[in-house]
């Protein structure tokens, strides 16, 4: 079976480097799944969940807050703005952070555009993280 060299990095660290058989990532136009021998592709990512299936059939879940994906000859590189493995995410803290951010949006009426965009991006990021945790829990239960 053909495999894909998968690598996901953020400016802070290498989140994961692994041989995989399938990668699913959220792009601007919807979710895409990359299988071996995919045509070269470059796309920008939306905040969301990345799922990979390793050679041994196990999956890994990650949350990402945006970035880029490059697919070339059986190699997938994700340059993420921020990314975490699902098992590293503390669910209660994610919920708290999201609630805080949503509250700020409601409470403060006078925004400059930059701040508004920042808070919305934060909400999207926390949402992606909580979705990643939920997906991960679901998978691990099925396993």
């Amino acid at each position, binding site marked *: 079976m053909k495999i894909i060299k998968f690598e996901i990095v953020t400016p802070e660290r290498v989140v994961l480097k692994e041989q995989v058989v399938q990668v699913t990532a959220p792009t601007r136009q919807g979710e895409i799944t990359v299988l071996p021998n995919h045509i070269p592709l470059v796309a920008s990512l939306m905040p969301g969940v990345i799922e990979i299936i390793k050679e041994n059939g196990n999956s890994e879940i990650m949350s990402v807050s945006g970035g*880029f994906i490059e697919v070339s000859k059986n190699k997938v590189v994700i340059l993420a703005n921020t990314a975490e493995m699902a098992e590293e995410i503390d669910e209660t803290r994610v919920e708290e952070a999201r609630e805080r951010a949503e509250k700020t949006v409601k409470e403060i009426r006078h925004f400059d555009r930059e701040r508004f965009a920042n808070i919305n991006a934060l909400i999207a990021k926390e949402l992606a993280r909580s979705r990643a945790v939920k997906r991960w829990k679901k998978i691990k239960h099925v396993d």
Partner: protein
Amino acid sequence: MANTRDIQNRIKSISNTKKITKAMEMVAASKMRRAIEAVLKTRTYANLSWNIVLNLSQAGNSNGGQALHPLLAKRERIKKVGIVLITSNRGLCGGFNTAIVNKAHKSVEKHKELGKENSEFIIIGKKGAIVKKHYNYDIAAEFSKEDIISEVKEVLPIAKIVLDDYLSGKYDKIMVAYTDYVSASKQIPRVKQLLPIDITTQDEYLGIVGEDTRVGIDKEFIDKKKEKRLQDKKNTYEYTFEPNPKEVLDEMIPRLIEVQLFQALLESNASEHSARMSAMHQATDAAKDMADELTLFYNKARQASITAEIAEISAGANALAE
């Protein structure tokens, strides 16, 4: 015989200097640790993103000669070059600033057809001003530099100037002169071509950050690039873009340029603090040697004066006895 009082004063002043250099060494060492941590963290990201950008530039060249994005297009005539020069704010860091300025000057001299008047510097760090003083280059912009840089945000104004001036046609080429951090005792000045993004430039300008440290993907990366460059245009990468090339590249390339500048800045910072630390270490050692030597002189001089005194007394006593 030298005056013992004079020697004593010198010893005192030297050991004071030693205390200062020692303290500076410590400060530099702690800053160095943080700078190195920062530089190593982002290196993989910077290299991978540069890799993608270079791949994209290649894809553009095989796309019927039509570049995918203005930032990937090579210009036929190079009229003016902008050089981003990263130096330190303060001195006392050994040959750090001299080395990078010389390197930048040499790379300008190589492009003889351009001449000095068509090269402009954008300097980061106060010491960059020596390019004006010593070599009489024009300085287009000057940015201050923080000792510890932690966020990409800090390079945004620099990236903006670089991108705007390139796109508006003020410059036809942008180089970055920075110091690559190899180890605490080794830093290498480098000039890298930032824009246009072009994989066919000479090797020395391809500029893989952290090339010599062989951290992570670097060695593999360089070998692959060399191999690819040998095959030249046989490479058949044709990327699909989602949603479309313009939108993706408009977002992606400026960001990756920012990351490159950021990485160059981090590398320079780590190098600067390392250079300062070793310079201060040497200064401390030299001060110690000097103080030791002077102490020896002082003891000799003291002994000599005692001997002379005794000799005088005993000579006097002898004269009385006779």
